[in-house]
């Protein structure tokens, strides 16, 4: 496992109507291949901004981002993003949404039958083979998010970027999808960055939790290594004292050291 994703002194300043707004500053982070990183912090701390920098959707004002020793200069299909609000195209079926991504990544070297097979496999992976030919407005929020994940996974990305992927879902659906995500990441060994504001989710899923200070000019406060055995089982973890210890540490960071003042 070598250092794969490398962020050095990244700084992000936005031009707003009220002048310059420093969202992020002094971000330094190194991620190993296959590692699962959770970015956690209060809302408005720039978690999503950091994710967008890695995605290449925004360019840093200062600093360098490297992916396998090459600078990230823009978005690309090797860094698949699962968006917060699923961002499925409503005029395409679930199949069509995933196929669009598959066609883009593999269309040049594979024939149509193979592309369709890939699309189908990705939808099967998230348990949606039955809803393949439905449009996004015909399926539930959890299913839409699964299609979003299938679209990202079908691209066989080097890095999987998840922006609060389960934030809008009810607790039961969320737990189901977390388990599925754990299984999939285990199978595909994708390097994963996930933005979340859910402490349990962060501890359950990740290898390391990057805890961010409050904005403006947010930065990385602490990094917590989650040394729990994999595969993890949420029921067994509930009785694991070390799990509760880790969870407590994240809570302490969020609610004692960096309590957000009520607006």
């Amino acid at each position, binding site marked *: 496992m070598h250092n794969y994703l490398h962020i050095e002194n990244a700084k992000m300043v936005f031009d707003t109507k009220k002048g310059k707004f420093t969202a992020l500053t002094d971000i330094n982070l190194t991620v190993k291949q296959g590692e699962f990183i959770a970015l956690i912090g209060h809302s408005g701390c720039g978690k999503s901004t950091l994710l967008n920098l890695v995605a290449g959707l925004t360019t840093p004002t200062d600093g360098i981002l490297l992916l396998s020793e090459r600078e990230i200069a823009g978005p690309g*299909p090797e860094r698949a993003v699962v*968006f917060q609000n699923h*961002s499925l*195209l409503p005029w395409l079926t679930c199949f069509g949404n995933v196929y*669009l991504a598959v066609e*883009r990544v593999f269309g040049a070297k594979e024939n149509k039958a193979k592309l369709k097979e890939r699309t189908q496999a990705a939808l099967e992976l998230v348990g949606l083979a039955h809803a393949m030919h439905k449009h996004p407005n015909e399926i539930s929020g959890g299913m839409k998010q699964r299609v979003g994940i299938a679209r990202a996974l079908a691209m066989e990305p080097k890095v999987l970027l998840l922006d609060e992927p389960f934030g809008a879902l009810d607790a039961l659906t969320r737990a189901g999808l977390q388990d599925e995500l754990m299984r999939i990441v285990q199978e595909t060994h994708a390097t994963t960055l996930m933005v979340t504001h859910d402490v349990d989710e962060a501890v359950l899923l990740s290898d390391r939790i990057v805890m961010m200070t409050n904005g403006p000019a947010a930065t990385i406060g602490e990094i917590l290594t989650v040394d729990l055995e994999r595969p993890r089982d949420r029921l067994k973890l509930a009785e694991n004292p070390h799990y509760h210890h880790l969870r407590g540490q994240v809570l302490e960071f969020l609610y004692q050291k960096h309590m957000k003042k009520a607006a």
Partner: protein
Amino acid sequence: MSAVTFNEGSLKDIMSHPDTVAATPEVPAIPRPTPFFATERGQALLEKLGNAFQAALPPVIGLILFVLLWQIVSTSGGDHGLPGPAKTWESAKVLFADPFYDNGPNDKGIGWNILHSLYRVGAGFGLAALIGIPLGFMIGRFRFLAGMTSPIISLLRPVSPLAWLPIGLYVFKETEPASLWVIFISSIWPIILNTAAGVSRVPQDYLNVARVLNLSELKIFTRILFPSVLPHLMTGIRLSMGVAWLVIVAAEMLTGGTGLGFWVWDEWNNLNVEHILIAIFIVGIVGLLLEQSLMLLAKRFNYE
């Protein structure tokens, strides 16, 4: 109140009495079919009919009142008043009995006139769509172009359509292309503006998907931009069609020859007021049908 009253108990007494039993012959009970309106389907149908009736009631009352008002206006005018509903109806029956006769250039059936007007609207509007849609896409996509065209559009859009007619006549030297030109120039603005607005309002989420996938410009257009803009585009088309249909009557009044507008003016010269009233209804009904069919088409492209 019935004069004879008995309770259930006394009825049972009579029934069980050995003398009364002999009077009833043994008839095998035939199961009677449930009446249709008592079944679930019948009930649903009744409810539907009731709803339809309730929905239709206000428009029907409105129309009846309108016709009454018309009758009052026409009778209060005396001999020189407006023709009343009955007289206009009789005249319309004659008119529509033979809609497609052709007695030379100035005397054609009403059907021909409607078709000519529709053709002009179709052609002028088609040209406007052909040029307006791509232009709208470009204006929406490139901010520089939007800045360039914005003063021109703002300046030309409020101009009354008929002000363009002399320009058309001067340039084309003929009335037919001149009236197409008027339709074209007055119906192009809603198409351009709505398309441009649609393009600039494509949700950032969809564009982010395009960026992450690194899609080609062609794919961005066919898979993201075009479908996303389509509802806006349909609104533009609907508004344009409305304007075109408004303008055609006036344009044809001035250019003459054929068409509903020409017919209205011709009947004014003949002092045939019934026909003018009929023309107003035709213009209204055709406009309504155009609008409704475009609405139906627009529904097809509503994804939410």
